[in-house]
């Protein structure tokens, strides 16, 4: 008996939905030339998008490469002929490494006085409260540890930015100036040492009558009062 072949469906043209951003705004129109030749414009219309993605991918890749070269502690040693450049790169690399180590220790072991305190700035209820918080840090290259103790009847948010670099001098804080020149500055600021120069507690005492708004101060290091960070206090409306 002759074996009959079983009829089969032809293979489907596609096996997954078309999720192409190219058709997001509908089918593209064929060009006049392609209409005359009876062709669709798909290939020519998508070529610019492919070109555009190639350009932006290449651009971002170059940016990443530049950033990696900047970050690499010893950089491209082969390209550094100058001994002074090598020394600078070595020191920068060592500083980066020690800061990273400090950050890691800090993450694993919170500082004394921080364990029992709320850590979210701005989460204070009305009424006199005292709280401390670990500031957001600008990059990983800093070893200055700042705690905040805030006394305020208003809801408030504190942001501290520590500039990158090593901090081994005593730190002070300028009075906090309001962004509006007519508003009196906040003078109730005090910096307490936590046993070493690179760890301090900033105490902010906000008088009840202090108007809401944004107040900025500068963290200053050593007798030469070199800026080593900034502090912003935002007193919110009731």
């Amino acid at each position, binding site marked *: 008996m002759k074996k009959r072949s079983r009829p089969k469906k032809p293979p489907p043209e596609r096996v997954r939905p078309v999720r192409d951003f190219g058709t997001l*705004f509908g089918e593209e129109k064929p060009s006049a030339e392609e209409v005359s030749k009876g062709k669709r*414009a798909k290939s020519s219309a998508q070529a610019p998008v492919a070109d*555009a993605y190639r350009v932006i991918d290449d651009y971002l890749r170059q940016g990443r490469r530049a950033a990696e070269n900047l970050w690499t502690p010893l950089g491209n040693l082969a390209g550094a002929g100058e001994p002074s450049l090598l020394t600078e790169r070595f020191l920068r690399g060592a500083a980066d490494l020690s800061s990273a180590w400090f950050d890691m220790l800090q993450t694993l072991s919170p500082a004394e006085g921080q364990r029992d305190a709320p850590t979210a700035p701005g989460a204070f209820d009305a009424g006199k409260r005292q709280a401390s918080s670990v500031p957001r840090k600008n990059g990983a290259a800093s070893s200055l540890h700042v705690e905040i103790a805030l006394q305020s009847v208003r809801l408030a948010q504190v*942001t501290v930015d520590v500039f990158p670099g090593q901090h081994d001098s005593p730190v002070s804080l300028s009075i906090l100036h309001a962004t509006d020149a007519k508003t009196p500055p906040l003078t109730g600021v005090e910096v307490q040492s936590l046993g070493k120069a690179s760890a301090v507690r900033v105490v902010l005492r906000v008088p009840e009558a202090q108007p809401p708004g944004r107040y900025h101060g500068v963290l200053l290091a050593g007798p030469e009062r070199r800026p080593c960070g900034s502090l*912003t206090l935002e007193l919110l409306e009731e």
Partner: protein
Amino acid sequence: MPTREAALVRAVLDEYGEIASRGIEQYLDRARNAEHLGPLLADYPSRGGRSLRASLCIAAARAFGAPLNDAVKSAVSLELLHNAFLVHDDIEDDSEERRRLPALHVLHGVPTALNVGDGLAVLSLGPLIDNHATLGPRVAHGVFREAHRMAQESVEGQALELAWRHKNDVQVTSEDYFRMVLKKTCWYTTIYPCRVGAMIGHRRDISHEGFVRFGFLLGAAFQIQDDVLNLAGDHGRYGKELGGDIREGKRTLMLIHLLHSAPPAVRSELHALLALPRRRRGDDEVAWVQGLMRRHGSIEHAKNAANQLAGAAAFEFGIAFREAPRSRDRDFIEALPHWILERA
């Protein structure tokens, strides 16, 4: 584009454009009494415009949670710099009109117009300095750094375009074109406003590449659509002389397509035409090139490219703004790729 989205884009552009205009006036007031300069500084800003850049900056900041006032100074600075670029661009391109009126150098001569452009660029630094009071030193410094990068990218892009024209380069590819547009148009029109807005909203530096991708694709669609309108738009609404890009020998996507698709004999003629000084490319020559572009599908090619790029921008929007909660400002930015294609 659905009417609701179109109405939203118009409403936000009007609202934020008005806020930016008031801010610009404050800074222009400071220079009002400068002899032979003050009134001229106000000329281009007073001619109107859509304030797309300022609106995008404010909307991006608000989409990420910033109060309105935090983004206004950055938006004002950008609009002032944009006007400075326009004055200088008009000289470099030898354009005759800007926003339906004679270009500044046509009215007052090139040396004076150059100085007015410089003046506007200097004026744009003021709001960035004043950002310190509003945003605090860290974020203000971050915005300033972004502004520096944006300005640098923009002048590098302009240098590319000027060099192609100066050397009468007919080998330019669409990849070259996108590289130029990324720098010349996208950085200050779309990438910078998004990045700065996000930085103000987040109150930290932005390394997120999503804004560069979204801004680039949106800005490229915007530029190509602008080039199409230069050929086939409504003069009353476009605000510049139609066909000006051909007269100026600008390497638009349409011209690049034509140069690569025309037969060798036509390409040689085009090469010779582009080598002529601008004043020798009159209405007849412009019409001839336009006809060639139509015959070879260059205009349709550009329209399709703008369409596709806007689609790609809509795709990248979802990635770049995924952290922003649903809001009027987020909806406005999401609607921009559609709006760019439909503006006349």
